[in-house]
C-alpha cells in the first residue's frame, strides 16, 4: 500500500507550493486507512497545526486529529537529548545555554540537520507511528538538509557523531525505511526547481523518490466555451473569465507535461480549492483527492 511503503516520508518543496498542506492531506489519507501518523515539523510556524484548527506545535507530541499526532523538533533540544544519551547529562543544558549549537554548527556545518534527522531516525527505530511525515525545510535547504550526513562524514572523522551520520544515511538510502515526496506547482520556476532538487537528491544523497505532488491545479471545467450571449450584461465578464480559466488550464497542462518529460516519476495531481485559507474540511477534500490520485498511479514496478 502506498502509505505503508516506508515508515518515514519526507515531504519537500519550494516555499509557497503548499508543502504543509500536502503533509496535512497525506496524514489525513493515512489516518483514514487506519495507520497511526506522526507529523514532525522542523521549521516552526508552518501553519500545519492551523490546518487542523490547532495551536502552534511544540516539542511535546500533540494529537491533531484521530490517528494524527504532531510535534516540532529543534536542533537545541535534539542536541540536549543527544548529549544526555552520550553520558554528558550533567553539562548538557549548560553547554546549550552557552551557545554550543552555534559554535558546533559553525565548526561542522550540517550538524543541526544531523541532530534532527538523528532524532527522526530514533523515532523510526522505536516505531512510534506507522507513518512519520517529516515536513522538510523549504526547497534548496531540503537538499543540504538531507545531504548533511554525507557532508558531516567528511568533516567529522571518528566520534559518536560520525556514527550518528552513518545511521541516518543508512535510513535515508533504504527505500523500505524512507522516501522523499516532492511537492510543486504547475508553474515554470517551481517545475524547474523540483526537477533540479529531484536529481540532486537522487545523485547526491541516494534517497528514494516517491511520486511528485503537483498542487493547485485548476479542476477542468467542461463547457467553458459555451456562448455567454444569453447572460446579457454579464456576457463580456463571463467570456473574459472563461478565457482566463481556459488559458490558465492550458498553461498548467503544458507545465505538467514538461515536468513529466523532465522527471520520470509518477505524479499525483491535487486540485486548487480556490481558497486562500485552508480549513480542516479543505484538508479532507485534498486527502480524498490524494486517495483518488494514488489509485490512478501506476504500480511501483512500472514506475521504476
Amino acid at each position: 500500500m502506498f502509505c505503508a511503503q516506508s515508515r518515514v516520508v519526507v515531504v519537500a518543496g519550494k516555499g509557497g507550493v503548499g508543502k504543509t498542506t500536502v503533509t496535512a492531506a497525506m496524514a489525513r489519507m493515512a489516518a483514514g486507512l487506519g495507520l497511526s501518523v506522526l507529523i514532525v515539523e522542523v521549521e516552526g510556524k508552518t501553519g500545519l497545526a492551523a490546518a487542523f484548527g490547532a495551536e502552534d506545535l511544540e516539542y511535546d507530541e500533540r494529537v491533531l486529529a484521530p490517528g494524527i499526532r504532531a510535534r516540532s523538533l529543534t536542533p537545541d533540544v535534539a542536541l540536549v537529548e543527544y548529549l544526555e544519551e552520550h553520558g554528558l547529562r550533567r553539562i548538557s543544558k549548560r553547554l546549550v545555554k552557552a551557545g554550543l549549537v552555534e559554535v558546533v554548527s559553525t565548526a561542522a556545518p550540517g550538524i543541526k540537520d544531523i541532530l534532527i534527522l538523528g532524532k527522526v531516525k530514533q523515532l523510526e527505530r522505536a516505531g512510534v507511528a506507522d507513518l512519520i511525515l517529516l515536513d522538510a525545510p523549504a526547497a534548496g535547504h531540503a537538499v543540504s538538509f538531507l545531504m548533511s550526513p554525507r557532508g558531516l562524514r567528511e568533516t567529522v572523522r571518528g566520534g559518536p557523531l560520525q556514527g550518528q551520520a552513518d545511521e541516518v544515511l543508512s535510513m535515508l538510502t533504504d527505500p523500505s525505511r524512507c522516501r522523499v515526496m516532492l511537492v510543486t506547482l504547475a508553474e515554470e520556476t517551481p517545475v524547474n526547481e523540483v526537477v533540479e532538487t529531484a536529481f540532486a537528491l537522487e545523485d547526491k544523497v541516494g534517497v528514494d523518490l516517491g511520486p511528485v505532488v503537483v498542487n493547485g491545479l485548476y479542476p477542468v471545467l467542461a463547457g467553458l466555451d459555451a456562448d455567454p450571449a444569453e447572460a446579457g450584461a454579464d456576457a463580456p465578464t463571463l467570456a473574459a473569465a472563461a478565457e482566463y480559466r481556459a488559458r490558465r488550464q492550458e498553461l498548467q497542462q503544458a507545465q505538467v507535461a514538461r515536468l513529466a518529460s523532465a522527471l520520470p516519476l509518477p505524479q499525483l495531481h491535487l486540485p486548487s480549492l480556490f481558497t486562500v485559507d485552508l480549513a480542516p474540511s479543505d484538508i479532507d477534500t485534498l486527502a480524498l483527492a490524494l486517495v483518488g490520485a494514488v489509485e490512478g498511479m501506476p504500480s511501483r514496478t512500472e514506475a521504476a
Partner: protein
Amino acid sequence: MTRDTIAELVADRSILICCGPGGVGKTTVAAALAVEGARRGRRTVVVTIDPAKRLADALGLGSLTNTPLRIEGDWPGELWALMLDPRSTFDGLVARYAPEPGQAETILDNRFYRNIAGALSGTQEYMAMEKLFELHSDERFDLVVVDTPPTRNALDFVDAPRRLTRLLDNRLFRLLMLPARTGMRAVSFATQAFLRTIGKVVGSEVVTDAVTFFQAFEGMEDGFRQRAQGVGDLLADSCTAFVLVTSPRRDAARETQFFAEKLDEAGIGVAALVVNRMHPRYAAVGPVGVPAPALAPLYRNLADLALLADGEEVHVTALAERIGAPAVRVPELETDVHDLPGLARVAAHVFADERPS
C-alpha cells in the same frame, strides 16, 4: 505624514532592499525597480543573491559575477547588475582586515573559516549587507537595489553583520581563543577538559581547526566589529528603504506578516508593499434566477475565481493595514520574466499610478 510612492522611492533614495518570503518573485521585482531607476536617469546597480540565477535570466544575461556588469538599454541612466558570491566577498573582507598578508592566507586556508564562509547560517545575508555597503560607497552608483535571500526571519539579514561579532563574543569561542592568547600551557585544567569533552562529541579535529582559526583571527575582530556597526547604521539611515515583496497566497501572507513584525521590532519601517501574482477580479451582476444549463459552467468559473480574488483581497488589505503602506498590486503573469521587455511589463504594473494609462 505623506508617504513616498514607490516611484518616489526609486527617484530619491539611495538604497532599496527588497525582502519577503521565498517564491514570490522578489528577484523580478528588484530587477524591475532597478530598470525603473535607470529609466529615471539614475546610475543604478542591482545585486541578487538568488542561487537560481534568476536575475541574470530576467535581465537577459547568461551569467552574472561578483563584480558589477553594465547592461545596455534605452534609458538615460545606467543599469549595472551583479550576483553575490558570499565566499569571495568574505575573502575580500578578511584580506582587508588582516594586518599582514600571511595572516589572511592562514585564515583563508583554514577549514573552520571555509565552513564559516560557506555555511554559517546568516553568512549569505551578512555578505549581502557587506556588498550593499561596498556598492553604496562606490562613486559609480547612486542607487543600489538589493534582492535578499528568502528567509523566514527578516532579522536574519538586518542582524547578519552582528552575527559574526556575536560569535566572537560567545563564551565558548572565548574559551577556544584562550590557547591563542596565553598558550596552551596556561589554559586551566578545567578548560582543557572542556575542550576534550567537545572534541569527544564533535571530533577532535573540529576543535583543532577552530582553535587554529581563532589564533589566526586574533587582532582582526575590531575591524569586523566596526564594519558591522557601519552596515547597521546604513540600514537605519533615511536614505535606505525596505520594500516588502509578497504574494497573496496564504503561506506567503502569513510569512510576510511575521516579517513585518520582526522589522518593526528592529525599528525598521517598511516603505512599500508590493503584492505580486494577484489573480484577476471579475465583477458580474449574477444570473437572474437559475441560469440556463449552458451558462452554468461559466457562472461556476466566475464563482471559483471570485472566491480566490476575494480571499486574496482580504490578505492584501490586512497586510497593507498592518504595514501602514498601500499595496502595489501586480497581476499574475502568464510566464516567468526572462528578458528586459518582460521586466518593463512588470515595471508598468508596479508604477501604474505614475504612468499615463
